[in-house]
């Protein structure tokens, strides 16, 4: 075994070693925070899809009928400016609701699932390809694209794609680290700064997500679910009642007009 020949490490080497340790700790923290954020986004996206599929479509249906009612009324009273404006507003609202709910696959994945294997893969990718760990601009751009794809794949629970992303980066020349203490020290210090900035961005993004109406709605729905109530179905039924009323009212107006 070769013994240490006794030369003390140079100051820049000591500094580099300490900075590397700091970066490693920060990288671990960053990976966990990215994972948490991606999970939150995935859960919210899956919930939003489910909500729109169950309740949102009912609103779109209701808005459509109300727009028809408003249009009939406006046609009936062509000089009534309020009726004309109401018809326009109802039409706009119906369009908006339809745009929100159109193309929702009936068999869309209902719940966000982040199995341990997915989380493990995501951690590995975030640790390997995170853009804030890039050594130069071209590397950064490549990492940026891969990370975006990884986030999307994680949200969709696509394990195969996550593996492919990891493989793609690990086989690229950018994955080979550079040499030279001074240059390396500067790179590490810059990475530390980048990681810290990203950590505060994640915190801010998390805060915004948790303040969103979607998050509030999800939390309340989850609470009711825990009590054994399928509150989304109940909400859909409540809007369904209003749809029936609106349909009856539309029929009445249409009959009165044709008479």
């Amino acid at each position: 075994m070769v013994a240490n020949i006794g030369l003390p490490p140079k100051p820049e080497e000591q500094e580099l070693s300490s900075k590397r340790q700091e970066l490693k700790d920060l990288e671990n923290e960053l990976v966990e925070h990215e994972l948490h954020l991606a999970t939150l986004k995935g859960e919210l996206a899956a919930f939003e899809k489910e909500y729109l599929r169950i309740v949102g479509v009912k609103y779109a249906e209701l808005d459509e009928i109300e727009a028809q009612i408003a249009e009939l009324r406006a046609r009936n009273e062509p000089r009534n400016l309020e009726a004309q404006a109401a018809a326009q507003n109802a039409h706009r609202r119906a369009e908006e609701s339809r745009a929100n709910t159109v193309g929702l696959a009936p068999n869309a994945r209902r719940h966000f699932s982040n199995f341990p294997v997915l989380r493990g893969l995501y951690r590995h990718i975030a640790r390997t390809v995170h853009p804030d760990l890039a050594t130069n601009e071209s590397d950064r751009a490549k990492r940026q694209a891969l990370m975006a794809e990884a986030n999307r794949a994680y949200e969709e629970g696509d394990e195969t794609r996550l593996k492919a992303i990891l493989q793609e980066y690990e086989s690229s020349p950018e994955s080979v680290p550079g040499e030279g203490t001074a240059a390396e020290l500067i790179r590490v210090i810059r990475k530390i700064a980048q990681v810290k900035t990203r950590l505060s961005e994640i915190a801010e993004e998390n805060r915004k997500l948790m303040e969103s109406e979607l998050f509030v709605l999800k939390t309340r729905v989850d609470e009711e679910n825990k009590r054994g109530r399928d509150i989304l179905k109940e909400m859909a039924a409540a809007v369904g009642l209003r749809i029936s009323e609106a349909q009856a009212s539309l029929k009445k107006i249409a009959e009165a007009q044709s008479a």
Partner: protein
Amino acid sequence: VTEPGDKRVIAVSQGGSLTKETQDFVQSPGAALVKHDSKLVRRGLDELSNLLDSQWWLIERHYPLALLVDDGPGILEPIAIIEQVLTTNGYEVHSTSSEQAIELARSLHPHVAILRQITKRPDEMQFHTELSKHAQIIISATEEFEIPFEPFDMLSFPLEERELLKKTSSCVCESEWKRRQVAGVLSNTANRIIDSAHNVASALDNEIARSERYGYECSVVNLQVDQNWHEQRGDLLLRGLRDLPRLLNEQIKSFCGSYLVFPDAVYRENHFTILMPQTSLIAVERFADKLHDMIHGTNWEQLVGSSVKLSGAIWAVTYPQEGASAGDLLERIWFGPLRRLREI
């Protein structure tokens, strides 16, 4: 779309699908994204609140009951006016003649009976005495009319809607209070309140007067124990919740700070009414949190000698936002709607 990492904000509009380029951008770390919540989400939140509130209403809402006793046309306004005013203000109203009034009062248990000035009955005194066993009585009469018995309230004509509602609501509270007579398990503090103020309504009246004088808000919190729990485990409730006023008092005192000066808890069947002077809308929500935590943190098993999980709800009303008088506030506490703050 700006470059990834650019600090400018892009807004992804509601609905529609994103191009791959935009998707890449918003998915990449460092992209500053503002995603507007869909208006459908806001509507869903409103829908959910309505649904949860209305469910509680279905279970809890019951109407104060008024019995109108009228023996035919007279010089006063038709009884129909009183009926209309009360009905539009959330009362369930039944009209009857004095012949049938006693029998109906026995079966309906009205909170209040409003009588027209009655002079025709030979047994008037006996009739009033008998009816007053079943309901608080208000006599509607001209100012010249002398009320035959001291305890009865009088409505003078011409009728003023505000006076009618105020007196009726006060009678309802009195009646409700009598029905929920304080059990013998009260803490000394609660008894002191009852002794000194006769009932919660007068205690609250005092607090409201004080709040009005100094420009404070004050709140009433109602801790309601789940009815099923109460019915099935009433014996445990009596034994275990005997300590609740003490625990509540301790909790309130620990929370007190500058918010509360005069907290007390009163046990009435499955309700605990807590007067909270100088307690604002926001402060009472914080208190509800504390109360919720306290109830969950309490070892009920130790107190009642059996494994139980207390369930129920915490409700609150605040003066002046949700009622201008003790009658208004207590009526809301007892008949809803009031703010449900926390599930237990």
